[in-house]
């Protein structure tokens, strides 16, 4: 049986920079943990997949803040000449409120 191909590890310094950026911008919504892995997106292009886990926060999550954090993440990679596109998967508490939604 062929070995399962493993995604190459992400540079730990880049992981730290991503974590720092997201915690600075999204910490107020309860962001606790960030995981970064490499892979291919659905178009088979190299990508960074970022999983962000949050605890329940009293402050409703602001979708605009999520979008701005994502934009900052794209800029971080552009500054480093990193061609990969970052896809952030936010894992919120099931009771978390989101601004603008019931």
């Amino acid at each position: 049986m062929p070995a399962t191909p493993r995604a190459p590890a992400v540079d730990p310094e880049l992981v730290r920079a991503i974590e720092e950026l997201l915690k600075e911008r999204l910490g107020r919504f309860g962001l606790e943990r960030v995981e970064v892995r490499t892979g291919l997106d659905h178009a088979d292009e190299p990508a960074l997949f970022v999983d962000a886990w949050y605890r329940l926060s009293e402050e409703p999550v602001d979708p605009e803040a999520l979008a701005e954090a994502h934009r900052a993440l794209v800029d971080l990679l552009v500054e480093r000449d990193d061609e990969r596109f970052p896809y952030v998967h936010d894992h919120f508490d099931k009771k978390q409120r989101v601004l603008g939604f019931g």
Partner: protein
Amino acid sequence: MPHELSTARLLAEADSRKPSQSHLKRAVNAVYYSLFDALARQAADLLIGSGEKRKLDRWRRIYRAINHNEAREALKKISKTRDPLWSDDARRFADEFVRAQELRHMADYDPGTSFTRQQVVAAIANAEAALDALGRLGRDERQELVTRCLFRDRA
């Protein structure tokens, strides 16, 4: 709000206690198609015209000429460019389009993927903001954006 996003909201807000994955995945699909539809409409409006011209075959031909992969490729370049030609609004639309297409692919083709209501409502809100951003672009920048999505650069 575009029809697709209204549908997405209804689906995401249905089943108040425990949203079904089927509803959430259809909402994710609708989010992507709201952006795709807006892009295709912009292309046809700018190249053919709006109002009565939307009834013309050539308007429909342009609308249908936008290809998912080529649009993603062009918009990903805009998202990651340092070229000052592109405004923050253009990059915002480009970001959301690329992200929404990946989410839609997961929703439609990866049975192992599940979504939470919070993820989906955030995607809906961001699609609304991206459509507003597209609407704020000046005519020249909109033309530049849609022609890059329609026509590949020669290598």
